[in-house]
């Protein structure tokens, strides 16, 4: 059960105020925390619980929901061979999160990609530039209100033939 997961037990002890939700689905544990404490929580997870590999950083746009964005950090512990997912909600009015590139240097590029495709900014990031798109690109394509075929073309109506 999710409540007995080694990380969840420790996080409940140390960061009880920041913990918003603990969920288990298909054997994977997801912990949702407040974004204000993300750096402290990640540092704690890396140092005390040996989640030494940051597999992935990404975001999800839940357009129409409040808060709109969700930051997702997929962690892996090489010594213990287990995974943990940490999520942090981000409001549309304040799309900035503290960078975790100080905790894992791999977050540098991964956060740049989130910035590029979602428009979420990272406070304290050493080099926050677009990474996949060109510097003069307008908009953030993975947002749900960015049309699939691009902003300057008629929406796709399905096949006409």
């Amino acid at each position, binding site marked *: 059960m999710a409540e007995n997961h080694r990380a969840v037990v420790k996080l409940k002890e140390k960061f009880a105020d920041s913990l918003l939700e603990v969920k288990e689905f298909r054997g994977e544990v*997801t912990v949702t925390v407040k974004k204000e404490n993300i750096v402290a929580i990640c540092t704690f997870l890396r140092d005390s619980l040996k989640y030494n590999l940051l597999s992935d950083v*990404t975001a999800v746009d839940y357009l129409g929901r409040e808060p709109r964005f969700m930051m997702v950090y997929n962690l892996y512990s090489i010594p213990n061979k287990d995974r943990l997912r940490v999520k942090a909600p981000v409001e549309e009015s304040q799309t900035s999160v503290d960078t975790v590139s100080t905790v894992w240097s*791999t977050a540098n590029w991964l956060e740049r*990609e989130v910035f590029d495709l979602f428009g979420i900014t990272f406070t304290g990031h050493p080099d926050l530039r677009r990474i996949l798109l060109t510097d003069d690109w307008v908009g953030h394509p993975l947002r749900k209100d960015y049309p*699939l075929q691009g902003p300057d073309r008629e929406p796709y109506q399905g096949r006409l033939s």
Partner: protein
Amino acid sequence: MASTEIMTVNMGPQHPSTHGVLRLVIELDGEIIRKITPHIGYLHRGIEKLSEHRTYHQIIPLTDRLDYLAPMSNNLGYVLAVEKLLDIKVPERAQTIRVILAELTRIKSHLVWLACHALDIGAMTVFIYAFREREKVMELYEKLSGARMTSNYFRVGGLSAELYDGFEKDVREILDTFPGYFDTYEGLLTKNTIWLQRTVGNGVISAEDAVDAGITGPALRGSGVNWDMRRDNPYSGYEKYKFVVPVGEKCDTFDRYKVRLVEMRESVKIVRQALDSLKPGPILADSPQVCYPAKDSVYNTIEGLIHHFKIASEGFPAPEGEIYQAVEAPKGELGYYLVSDGGNKPYRMRIRPPSFCNLSAIEKMANGSMIADLVAVIGTLDIVLGDIDR
């Protein structure tokens, strides 16, 4: 007194040793690298965005185009992710065939790595030999799926078709001949003075730094981290096979070379074990709401035709939830993070590309070395731009 001046040099995006459309802006002090700024995205096709507008089955061909040197590994990661989301069980025969193909794909991908890496450093013979052997795996791909590179052979719940007659013979021929070829490559390289001078002590990155930088796969094992998801978090029945996970010691390009060569030999062993244990049986899960019906019933019965049409046009709904499934792709950890809102398309699909994270460590590995050694570092990271840019 000679004046020292930092010179900025542009490398790529069209440069043979950047393995695709990678552009590096390098600041040089004489021949010593002081700073590297990689520019990527030239091959960005928006696969993650496209996936939000396709049914789960329609995404499989897109995954072929991620790491186009290892399409079956990409397919495998994706179908495993969807199967985990749906919680369906794949029959044993399909799992075993997936392992056989994933391991042949690993050999194929490592052969391209070896060929290009050796060519970059100046060993042209190895390039020609390795591509010759790779062609044998490509021919197998073509016989099996109809395509040499974009195989699109796996399906959610199993496989798209039964193996062709003579598949086992073809695979056994590969298994019998390839170890001899590997010996040839080693004979050409392992004790070659030029090869040793170019690779020993090049691109050193300590185990701690490599983990911190997010390096995974053989590049990480070359730095002495004993971690392989096939052994430590087995999927698709990998726990049944016996194989050794090679680990390097000196964290340099030569150790990563040795690790990958051993990996190819271990892959041969895994394929042999899998082939020996292959038994007749179904190749698709017993989940008609998800899997395509058998072709026989599509062509001969109206129910089968309707069933096929429904799966092809509408797809299937997936339960609400989110999962992350990673596989040990030839280049490292390939992960799929799927978010479902209960519809027939993923609400969000994130691909965790191994090459992207491996490349981000390039500055740490090449800073302070000669510009000629940068080429060896790019080669040893084994990057594929289709995977990096998505």
